[in-house]
């Protein structure tokens, strides 16, 4: 080693006392996340366990009785209504997912890659986002006067001479349900995808162009893979919103279809808590499996926290 190797410790070699009580770093973190953890455990985890437990209870017209029965589940899983509703919900979910993915991806791509000025980009994004902050109920019922027999859409088409009679299928049909879902949830797909796209290093695209890739090849080999996380996130949000929907299907399908959750709410209103709990648990498992599947595509924690 170097010149100053021999060092005698000064006579007063002591470690001065700590000036304030030191908590280990992770204890400070615990204190900071404490309120969040408390709220989530008491108001989310425990209630979920509550209806999980209640799903095994017995019940009659008078009340509910703690027990451990599988009857609720047996009735639930053997009833054809259950399967019909789930199938119908999944059908809606898949259709809506496909449409919002197409729209969300293209619009996000437009905003991130085609718009050059930051102000324009922000302004357009805000325009797309502002309706999101109006109540979902109001946005849903807004479609009724729009799609109805005397509604704007039919009136315009009639005036333009494109049709002879008003289109009936527009309202209170599967089509109106899908339209409403797309209206409500496209932003949920657009946001995360735009976020992912913005993170792509432009140098990668230039390097690909340099190597001779066409625009479509770049899209397929560079942009799409790198936006996987945004697509996965958006998909999770859209699927869970559609499957968990209470209001839209009820209003917009005119009673022809029911959603899983609206069927559940009927049982809740009839105070039949144990079978409602069983339905709830089934839905949670179903949604949970879907989300877990989609999370295999992307490590959410790394994406959102880093």
């Amino acid at each position, binding site marked *: *080693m170097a010149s*100053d190797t021999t060092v005698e410790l000064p006579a*007063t070699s002591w470690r001065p006392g700590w000036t304030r009580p030191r908590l280990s770093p992770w204890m400070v973190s615990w204190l900071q996340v404490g309120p969040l953890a408390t709220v989530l455990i008491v108001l989310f985890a425990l209630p979920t366990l509550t209806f999980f437990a209640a799903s095994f209870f017995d019940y009659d017209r008078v009340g509910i009785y703690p027990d451990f029965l599988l009857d609720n589940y047996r009735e639930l899983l053997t009833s054809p209504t259950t399967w019909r509703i789930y199938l119908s919900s999944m059908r809606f979910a898949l259709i809506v997912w496909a449409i919002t993915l197409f729209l969300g991806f293209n619009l996000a791509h437009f905003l991130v890659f085609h718009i050059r000025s930051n102000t324009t980009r922000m302004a357009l994004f805000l325009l797309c986002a502002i309706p999101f902050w109006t109540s979902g109920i109001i946005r849903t019922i807004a479609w009724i006067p729009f799609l109805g027999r005397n509604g704007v859409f039919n009136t315009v088409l009639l005036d333009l001479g494109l049709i002879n009679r008003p289109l009936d299928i527009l309202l209170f049909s599967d089509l109106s349900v899908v339209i409403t879902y797309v209206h409500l949830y496209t932003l949920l797909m657009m946001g995360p995808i735009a976020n992912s796209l913005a993170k792509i290093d432009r140098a990668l695209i230039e390097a690909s162009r340099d190597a001779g890739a066409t625009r479509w090849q770049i899209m397929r080999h560079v942009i799409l893979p790198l936006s996987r996380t945004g697509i996965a996130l958006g998909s999770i949000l859209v699927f869970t919103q559609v499957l968990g929907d209470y209001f839209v299907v009820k209003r917009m399908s005119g009673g022809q279809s029911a959603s899983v959750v609206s069927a559940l709410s009927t049982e809740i209103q009839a105070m039949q808590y144990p079978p409602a709990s069983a339905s709830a648990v089934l839905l949670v498992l179903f949604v949970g499996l879907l989300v877990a599947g989609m999370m295999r595509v992307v490590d959410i924690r790394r994406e959102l926290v880093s």
Partner: protein
Amino acid sequence: MDPRFDVELVGVTKRYGPGKPAVDDISLRIPKASYCCLLGPSGCGKTSTLRMVAGHETITSGDVLINGSNVTGLPPIKRGTAMMFQNYALFPHLSCADNVAFSLRMRGVGKAERTRTALEFLGLVHMEAYASRLPAQLSGGQQQRVALARALVSRPKVLLLDEPLSALDPFLRVKVREELKRLQRELGISFIHVTHSQDEAMALADMMVVMQDGHIRQAGSPREVFSNPATSFIARFIGGHNVLPREAGLIAVRADRCRLTDAGAGLPAQVEAVEYQGGQVRIVVTTVNGENASVLLPDAEYDADPVEAGMHKHLTWAPEDERRLAA
């Protein structure tokens, strides 16, 4: 108690996890009012060392003494040090004056007095005119001066600088370098300056500390280190040296003490390239044993006997210019 040194490191080690420590049992004594440069490649532990002196990193084992008192474990403010960060870290939401007055405000000094003091220190770095501006409105060099003023307000005994010149363009770097040296002389305190540029370190330092892999390889004045590098690493890192193997071991010779001759004694070598460097010309050669070496000639001397790539010459030097290397 008679503190003979401004800063002392005694067996200081820093571990971030299992495996090699980032700083491995180093000891150092920095004399009063000296400009000390910690020099080394990235990952050598120089910044960790600086931050341990500052109190922004905990010390795994060892002690740090400032002015003779053991400050190990004390928070930064109680050590008598102040740090200038690499990115300046000027608070973007405060004006320059408020930035400089920050430490006074934390101590509870009244508004009138701290404004006065802040302006005084801004004057020291010739930035009084910008007192009410926000940092984002200043250039890089101006921000650095404000950061300097802010660090000096607490009247530190030691000023710690973390690569202060890296973000500046080359011309500004030289100018600011002079100002830093002047300031250190005027203030009469010690500066510890971390850098990876040997030019910077040699120009500024009273004491140059070359680090590698968490160890101090050599500490001394720039002249001493340049004339007598201890290891091949130092010789290569400092630059301007040829490291050549001999039967007895490795030696280093200064490139400007080497010459190329046509015949006779010396190592046969082939000229690879000729680089013009202004007042000097650098000739890169490959010796017959396959080593790279270079020769630095004043341009007049080169012009008297120019060489070209491909020529065969002999690399010579005076034996008293050889330095034995430890490793």
